[in-house]
């Protein structure tokens, strides 16, 4: 793998990790809110 390809590899991996992290954080918030709503019913 050339240095240019390595940089591209790391850039993509970093972006994917960031997107997956944001999605997981979103699900944590959503599940918390669903739990609160269902407990209040």
């Amino acid at each position, binding site marked *: 793998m050339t240095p*240019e*390809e390595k940089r*591209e*590899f790391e850039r*993509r991996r970093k*972006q*994917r990790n960031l997107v997956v992290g944001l999605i997981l954080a979103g699900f944590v918030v*959503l599940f918390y*809110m669903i739990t609160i*709503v269902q407990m209040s019913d």
Partner: protein
Amino acid sequence: MKTGGGAPETVRPFRIEIDNVTTTAAPIATQLPADWRDFFALTKPKVMRLVVFTALCGLLAAPGTIHPVIGFTAILCIALAAGGAGALNQWWEADIDAKMKRTARRPLPLGKLRREDARDFGMLLSGTSIVIMGLAVNWLSAAVLAFSIFFYVVIYTMWLKPSTPQNIVIGGAAGAFPPLIGWIAVTNEITAMPLLLFAIIFMWTPPHFWALALWVKIDYAEAGIPMMPVARGETTTRRQILIYSALLLPLSVLPWWIGGTGAAYGLSAIALSGIFLAMSVPVGLRTSVEGDTMRPEKRLFAYSILYLFALFGALVVDRVMFA
């Protein structure tokens, strides 16, 4: 090499053998992790807009109330399921997509990610959406959601699309599920009204899609897909467009006729479906000539999208303003 979201200049898909399994993945794609935008493109975001809109309309038009958080979760699950089904559709049809100009720029034909990754991504989205829908909303809507994914991926994509010119008629039902599921998310029961909403989209799909197929039929012919214009000819397709458009008019008014909506929806349905029928008449009765610009067909296709947004918008306005 590009550093943006697009594929590197050197990437060209071709068939290679890995552990005796033939794949279309490009060599660079086996080394680099796929860009997140390529996964997003697998979900067919443009189709998802219509899915989310009709599901939201079904949810808002349903009698009863739903907590905003649960309502949001239901729409999210429907969107995730549509995305998952779209990804599984692209996984299965990667070879066909590569042969058609309209779909050749999708991530899999371009070799931007591995076919197996698309399958796993689609399965993950589909499974997640069903489980969350069941746990957070209700299990009836989760069951219908699961069936809609099965219908689109297995019944339509794998079975009907490559085997019968009626593929769009029956397969179009897959796109008719969102308002039904949105409605069931609120009511937890299947009644006549959501079934009518289902039937309206079911009846709308053939003229909508065949108007498109009339001017991209060369693509379908080259890919070996028996779309109506390819398998039965242009004249039959035009007549069928006219028949379905004529049936759509009374069907779209039926929710008003059975007392499920008010006059705001009923009069809107008459006007919108009347225009739909009027625009389908020149498409249904004419014959294209060499070098035809297919303007009536393109206008009908564009109007058909506007029609669905406007009709379901009228349904919600009727419910919210006049219920």
